[in-house]
């Protein structure tokens, strides 16, 4: 059993994380010195495609391909040093103490297993429980993610479920081993706006009720600010700005401001949308 983190210590500590991918023409530096800490809170990581936000999340679970060059001064979950941990220790973290929800349940659920069987598998992999007990627990989990007809969904295959329903199943599976941290990487980008709001409030409710930490990775600034406590804005592998989510509209960095301003608005009519002028200075290494 892994000891819980010391009192007052953040659950996740990242200092000077660097990730590079070697290619034929040199090394692509996807993450260039990211420092973050996450306590029992909801942290949003926003940025455009290629900003390094997903790679940062994957590095925490050591889920990057073997060719990736990962270095950090500190990369710690609880008391586990991620870079030094054994595969066995990592297996206890992945899907056990850290849950990961991905964008499209169509691809992240196993197409040849029923929803119920996948949740039971998650339970039995991380908890000492019997088959019958797991079956009952899976049903209870499906109920807790507000599925109205949990028995039908338990026996359904992923292709028989809608996108929103599939994402609920995914969430139920990730909640099964009672994780301490949930990493949600674009969990609602494949869903309709109305379903999006339902799924995010479901994640929020479960995170609050279970006292988990949440890392919400997304390209959608307004959405993240609505559901998180704190937001880190990433650009070209670095965190440019970190601020309380409620103060996003008061963001000072030109990049954050630019991202907010180029959104078309339903409320206010504009003939042209302001476009982002990328300042080369944003690429400079940050202290």
């Amino acid at each position, binding site marked *: 059993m892994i000891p819980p983190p010391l009192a007052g210590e953040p659950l996740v500590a990242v200092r000077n994380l660097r990730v590079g991918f070697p290619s034929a023409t040199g090394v692509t530096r996807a993450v260039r010195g990211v420092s973050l800490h996450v306590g029992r809170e909801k942290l949003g990581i926003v940025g*455009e495609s290629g900003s390094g936000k997903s790679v940062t999340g994957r590095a925490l679970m050591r889920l990057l391909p073997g060719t990736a060059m990962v270095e950090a001064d500190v990369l710690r979950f609880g008391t586990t040093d991620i870079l030094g941990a054994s595969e066995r220790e990592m297996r206890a973290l992945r899907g056990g103490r850290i849950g990961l929800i991905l964008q499209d349940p169509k691809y992240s659920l196993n197409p040849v297993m029923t929803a119920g069987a996948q949740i039971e598998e998650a339970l039995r992999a991380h908890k000492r429980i019997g088959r019958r007990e797991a079956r009952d627990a899976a049903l209870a989990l499906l109920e807790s993610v507000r599925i109205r007809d949990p028995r039908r969904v338990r026996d359904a295959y992923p292709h028989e479920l809608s996108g929103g329903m599939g994402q609920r199943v995914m969430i139920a599976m990730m909640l099964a081993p009672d994780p301490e941290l949930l990493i949600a990487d674009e969990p609602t980008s494949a869903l309709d706006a109305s379903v999006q709001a339902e799924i995010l409030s479901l994640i929020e409710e479960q995170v609050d009720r279970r006292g988990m930490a949440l890392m919400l990775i997304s390209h959608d600034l307004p959405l993240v600010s609505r559901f998180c406590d704190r937001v880190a804005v990433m650009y070209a592998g670095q965190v440019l700005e970190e601020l309380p989510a409620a103060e996003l509209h008061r963001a000072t960095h030109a990049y954050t401001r630019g991202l907010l301003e180029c959104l078309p608005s*339903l409320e206010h*009519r504009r003939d042209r949308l302001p476009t982002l002028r990328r300042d080369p200075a944003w690429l400079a290494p940050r202290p």
Partner: protein
Amino acid sequence: MTGPPLTGPPGTAAPDGAPMIEVRDLDVRFGGNHAVRGATFRVARGETFGLVGESGSGKSTVLRAIAGLVTEWTGRVAVDGRDLGRRRDRAFFRAVQMVFQDPYGSLHPRQTVDRILSEPLAVHGVAEADARILRALEEVALPRAARFRYPHQLSGGQRQRVAIARALIAGPRVLLLDEPTSALDVSVQAEVLNLLSDLRAARELTLVLVSHNLAVVAHLCARIAVMQGGRIVEELGEAALREGRAVHPHTRDLIRLSRAIEAG
């Protein structure tokens, strides 16, 4: 800029004042799935018309029926005053072009931009391909160097510009846009939306935009139809949409959601 030849031989074009697109009682069935149920609307020449709704509401299917990509439809579809059958002729494709959501999926991965842009010119027998390609690249603000690149060597925004250039290169009158910015970052979305409004104004294009995003549709379109369960449940102007003057409960729901997300 003068427009290209009208659809069909001279003399068959509709008189001025006839709508560019007319869809009446359009029904589309895929087996047991009744995807579009009696959709009716008109789009005037040079107008931008939006179709909004959630996934499965039938909005993309309406667009694909106009484009001729869906053949199992009944009802009336007319472009430029000519009733269209299930099969479309070359003149139709010269006049009506489409841009899809995912530029990576809609561009041939093993063809260079040059080849991608040459194809419509060859199909329609357009002369001066070289000059046309250079002008098309300039028009969508792509560097000349992009001409001999492959799609995977371009960013998502550049790829969507190539898709737009391909749609425009033979000089269409109507552009059908299916979620053209949904796969793009918001900064790139702003650039592509600006590009589309500039091109529309410069070429007097008629646009039909399908999107789930109300803010995007209101930005580009003058008139908007809201779809739910295969039906058009409401049609309203851009100002009415912005001000929330909607009658149908589904439209009101969509507006409420969009406002909540915008408010953060």
